[in-house]
């Protein structure tokens, strides 16, 4: 077999196994009470624990975007409120959904892959199976549901903090007046963009959790392989997020 077909064959196997795993994960939970409790725990662990990093990164990136736009489009022909307008467009359309999810692929994805990988190598997943528990359903579905449900909150936080970061730069520096920046933020605003951004982020959240779960759940070996699975999950979900971003943009914009 040629190297290229080898590569394709390997990824086809991965894809087949991924579909089968998702088939097992998306089953009716054996105990709804346990499932809801798990979902709440996952929301806390994957979502609420990510709020800090989302706020921090969004505020700084918002500030930097405002500065960069202001410095790079300086022209008497372009109205100065364009800085606020462009900051809003970049943050709402791309940063708060795609870039934020790429960052979360690192944090959340590696967390899930290492957790499931460790459970696999310490036989905790086997223990679930022996008890008659559908381990994929018990372990993976709450993570997917919890993160997909909570990611809109992270997106809204990110949008708010990104635009606030830009506003603070306009307030503390003389790059642009706060009033002009604020006018730019409101200029030609479409609420549809919020829904679009949230929808994208929810799709990316599914990609992150399901990809990381796949790599973590199928770990074979020991601690070294858990680390490898964690890296693979971040790389895999980042590639898939970027590919899905192009596809969604083509379809929805």
């Amino acid at each position, binding site marked *: 077999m040629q190297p290229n077909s080898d590569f394709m064959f390997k990824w086809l196997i991965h894809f087949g196994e991924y579909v089968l795993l998702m088939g097992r994960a998306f089953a009716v939970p*054996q*105990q709804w009470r346990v499932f809801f409790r798990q979902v709440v725990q996952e929301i806390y662990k994957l979502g609420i624990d990510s709020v800090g990093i989302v706020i921090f990164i969004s505020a700084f990136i918002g500030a930097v975007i405002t500065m960069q736009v202001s410095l790079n489009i300086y022209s008497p022909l372009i109205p100065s409120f364009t800085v606020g307008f462009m900051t809003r467009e970049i943050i709402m359309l791309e940063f708060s959904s795609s870039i934020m999810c790429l960052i979360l692929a690192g944090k959340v994805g590696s967390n899930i892959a290492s957790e499931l990988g460790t459970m696999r190598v310490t036989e905790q997943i086997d223990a679930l*199976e022996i*008890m*008659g528990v559908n381990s994929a359903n018990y372990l993976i579905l709450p993570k997917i549901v919890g993160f997909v449900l909570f990611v809109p909150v992270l997106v809204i936080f990110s949008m708010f903090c990104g635009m606030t970061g830009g506003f603070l730069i306009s307030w503390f520096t003389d790059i642009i007046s706060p009033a002009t920046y604020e006018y730019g933020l409101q200029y030609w605003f479409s609420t549809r963009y919020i829904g679009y951004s949230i929808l994208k982020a929810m799709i990316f959240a599914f990609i992150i959790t399901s990809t990381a779960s796949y790599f973590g759940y199928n770990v074979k070996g020991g601690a070294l392989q858990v680390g490898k699975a964690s890296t693979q999950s971040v790389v895999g979900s980042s590639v898939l997020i970027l590919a899905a971003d192009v596809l969604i943009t083509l379809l929805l914009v």
Partner: protein
Amino acid sequence: MIEAKHLIKSFDGKEIIRDISATFEKGKTNLIIGRSGSGKTVFMKLLVGLLSPDAGEIRYDGRNLPSMKKAELNALRQEMGMLFQGSALFDSMTVMENVMFPLTMFSQETRQKQEMRAQFCLKRVQMADAADLYPGEISGGMMKRTAIARAIALNPKYLFCDEPNSGLDPKTSLLIDDLIHGITQEYNMTTIINTHDMNSVMNIGDKILFIYEGKKEWEGTKDEIMNAENKKLNDFVFASDLFRKVKAAENQ
């Protein structure tokens, strides 16, 4: 009773389990012994259904495991308890929550009755005082005892133990052996233990199966093992200096 009939299992074209047939009786501790890499763990994984055999039958009181439908298999799994080599306790749960877990998932009893059952199981393995601790906060022996409590929580018919004494000091090993043996007789379970610890063999081995390079090499009781005329078994048993001396003393 569990019966294995002509079991065969290969990985990447290499036969790891080669036509093993055995019967494991109810109310007895059945030990599978053999050197590391002889196929004991694969054999046990076949018995519990974590691996599928290439050929052969595994009968649980007449029910053939490889041909079971998903619902039947799930029902059978609730009749099984397993103690893993590394205990396999859930890190995120306390000792009590670990024992409660199978009850929460499968028991139809009220929460109060489930808690009473979990407390009873913890008391049975002398772990009631550590109920609120996490697995990371207890010793290896305590982890094994917790895993036994979790395994018996649903009152199983079949108990499987993979290397229950690995990593334990001799005294704790004895305690774990006695606990498993006592529980087996108390609940009249079919217990199968994977081990290469000869102390366990002599202590609790009601029935012993010796596996060598994937094949059943010898079968007997703990009273027969010291005088068995099987070179491979003798090499395994008398690898320990202690057992050589015991044998020599017996001969004198």
